[in-house]
């Protein structure tokens, strides 16, 4: 199965293909209609030609009859009969003179009973019979005249007429016959008026051409191919590689041997004007295909180029560069797609900014809220409670342990502690080695951050005891920790470089919490959880607290009141 690798190629193929199909279909139907029209025109021309042939021969027959009548009435001829001794030579020469006068091919004189008196034909007998047959016809006619066709020689087809020589009317003293040849001149004459090829031929046992306007070779071919179905039959014949529509017209001679008139027109010649049109159409088709190709190319590029740019831009985005925007000033879908890409980039950049926060394993509700209220992450002053928890006794435990097991153990500890923080809605801000920094009241604000932090510390103490029991059963020494908690106004926000941002809190309050944590090492305090007086003041619930007095932490000039958390109230 072929598949397009480029959208542009596909578009190009569709445009050019559709146009080609449309043009080819048009061309096909036009060519077919042209051929049908040409055939109809040829058939009409052939019908006209057949009628013209009728008219010409009918007119000539009338002329011949007229000429024969004039001859028969000529007194000079009658003079021959006034003499007791009919002189045949004289009569023949007189007929020859008349033949010249009327431009006939044959003149013949029969006596009243049909016997030959004189003829201008040298081989008299051949020419005699057709006229004798006419005489039988004439005797049945009221006009006592007859006209028809006859072979006055082997291939000498003639139009022949026979009229009586009256002396006087209606006494018939003799018959005068006139023949006019159907020859090349006749064919050319008919061709001139009808624009058809004209051939006279015989089609009996040995078909022979009498006369033709076709060249001798095609005429011979015609005589071999012609199989007339009957009078006025229509046929299509290929002569010399050209297709001719042909109409056959039978001519019955008075002696019964038929001759045929074949009227033809070359389909190629008839189609010539249509071919010109078809050539124009082909040229137009090719030109329009080229234009379509150019338009298609332009369209394809106008689509594929921005698509490619968008594709490249996705790589930019995939590469983590959310700052670079794509500039595609278009009003269409692609333009909107580019805008969507830019929105995507900025969305991704925004997500990057909150990702750190999300990494702090806040609950999905909190994450959604954070993403929605992204602006809140910009940096603000907020009262939060910060918790620092540091692991003790980890060093002796880690001795002799492989790195993998060490990390697994550490993570096991951090996991339990983090769970306790999150259970109270806190956020683990970071792990600093085995130390945990957790925030309550940011980024999601809450009024009881101190309570939450203290409850989380108590839960952590419980969780550690639980973990120690597990470690004891595993034959490992127990772990201990120290927790420092302070509640203070801090600055919360995304802190870091453009490529790496951390949501965190900073401020003296944070430092205080970090400083309180090491104080749990002091034996005199006998506690693992120390809270500042700020935290104590913020507590709403009741807890068992033990005042530890004032201390001055490192880096501070003022002293702080601190308390140990012994148990929940």
């Amino acid at each position, binding site marked *: 199965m072929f598949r397009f690798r480029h959208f542009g190629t596909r578009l190009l193929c569709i445009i050019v293909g559709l146009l080609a199909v449309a043009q080819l279909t048009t061309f096909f139907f036009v060519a077919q209609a042209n051929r049908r029209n040409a055939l109809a025109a040829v058939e009409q021309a052939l019908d006209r030609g057949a009628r013209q042939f009728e008219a010409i021969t009918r007119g000539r027959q009338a002329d011949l009859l007229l000429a024969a009548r004039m001859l028969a009435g000529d007194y000079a001829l009658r003079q021959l009969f006034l003499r007791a001794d009919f002189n045949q030579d004289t009569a023949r020469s007189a007929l020859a003179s008349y033949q010249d006068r009327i431009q006939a091919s044959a003149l013949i004189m029969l006596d009243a009973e049909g016997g030959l008196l004189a003829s201008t034909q040298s081989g008299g007998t051949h020419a005699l019979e057709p006229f004798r047959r006419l005489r039988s016809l004439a005797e049945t006619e*009221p006009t006592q005249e007859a006209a028809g066709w006859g072979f006055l020689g082997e291939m000498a087809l003639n139009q022949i007429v026979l009229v009586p020589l*009256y*002396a*006087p*009317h209606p006494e018939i003293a003799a018959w005068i016959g006139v023949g006019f040849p159907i020859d090349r001149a006749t064919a050319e004459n008919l061709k001139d008026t009808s624009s058809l090829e004209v051939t006279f031929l015989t089609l009996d046992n040995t078909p022979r051409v009498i006369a033709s306007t076709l060249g001798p070779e095609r005429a011979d071919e015609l005589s071999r191919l012609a199989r007339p179905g009957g009078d006025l039959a229509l046929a299509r014949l290929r002569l010399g590689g050209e297709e001719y529509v042909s109409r056959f017209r039978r001519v019955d001679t008075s002696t019964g041997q038929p001759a045929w008139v074949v009227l033809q027109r070359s389909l190629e010649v008839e189609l010539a004007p249509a071919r010109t049109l078809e050539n124009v159409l082909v040229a137009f088709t090719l030109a329009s295909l080229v234009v379509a190709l150019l338009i298609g190319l332009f369209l394809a590029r106008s689509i594929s180029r921005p698509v490619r740019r968008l594709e490249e831009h996705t790589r930019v985005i995939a590469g983590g560069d959310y700052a670079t925007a794509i500039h595609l000033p278009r009003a269409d879908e692609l333009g909107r797609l580019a805008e969507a890409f830019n929105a995507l980039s900025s969305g991704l950049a925004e997500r990057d900014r909150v990702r750190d926060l999300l990494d702090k394993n806040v609950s999905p509700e909190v994450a959604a809220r954070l993403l929605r209220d992204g602006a809140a992450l910009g940096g603000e002053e907020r009262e939060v409670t910060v918790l620092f928890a540091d692991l003790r006794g980890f060093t002796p435990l880690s001795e002799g342990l492989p790195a993998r097991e060490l990390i697994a153990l550490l993570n096991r500890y951090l996991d339990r502690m983090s769970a306790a923080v999150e259970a109270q809605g806190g956020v683990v801000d970071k792990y600093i080695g085995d130390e945990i920094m957790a925030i309550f009241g940011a980024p999601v604000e809450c009024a009881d951050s101190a309570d939450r932090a203290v409850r989380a510390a108590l839960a952590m103490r419980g969780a550690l005891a639980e973990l120690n029991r597990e470690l004891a059963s595993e034959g490992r020494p127990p772990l201990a920790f120290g927790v420092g908690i302070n509640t203070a106004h801090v600055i919360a926000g995304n802190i870091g470089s453009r490529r790496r941002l951390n949501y965190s809190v900073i401020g003296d309050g944070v430092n205080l919490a970090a400083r309180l944590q090491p104080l749990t090492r002091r034996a005199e305090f006998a506690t693992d959880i120390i809270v500042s007086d700020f935290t104590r003041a913020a507590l709403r619930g009741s807890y068992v607290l033990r005042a530890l007095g004032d201390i001055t932490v490192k880096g501070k000039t003022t002293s702080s009141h601190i308390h140990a958390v012994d148990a929940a109230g």
Partner: protein
Amino acid sequence: MRFDFLPTTGSVRGSGFWRRLGISLVLGAGFLGGPLAARNGFEAVVVDAAGELVSDVVLSLTPLDGQAMPPSVAGEAKISQIKQEYSPYVTAVRTGTPVEFPNLDTIQHHIYSVSKPKRFEIPLYEPGRSEVVTFDQPGLVVIGCNIHDWMSAYVLVLDTPWFGKTTADGRVSLADLPSGRYRLELWHPRVSKPLSREVTLGTTSGAEPLRLTLALRPDRRLRRAPTPGAGGAY
């Protein structure tokens, strides 16, 4: 001997002409003289197949028993050219009879015949003149005019003095015939088969004319060319 003058064959010319392809001739014979006379009279009536009376039928009786024939009398026949027609159309004469051809028209005519018994021509001759042609051989002589195709006349030259031509009422009468056997012959320009039979006079009696049938061909006489300005009579 007397010829009835018939200007045309009016009775057979007309619209119904072509239908009458067969025409019968009926002949009647009877005594014209009294009981003392040795001479007999003859009367015949000619009709065509449709029963129409036919004029211009020549009836001739040729003696078969050597009956004495009267001597020929010269100069009794005349064929005029008048109104560009021959008149009469049919003429019967005894062999050796000179026939006069007076031109009574205002134009010239050119009389000719190529018929074997008498080939002759009288080239264009002036109105008012008259030529005489003697028909010295028996047989049919058809006469035409070289410049008027429609003009034709028939001269039947007979070797007997006893003949006559039917008038418009189809009748023909002969008189002064000696008793005995005769060959009776009938001829008409359009006869397709001349009628010939034997009759005997002086032995039978009866006043009724006999009627006989004779087939005739269609009339093929030329219609006269219309005279320019004559209003197109045809």
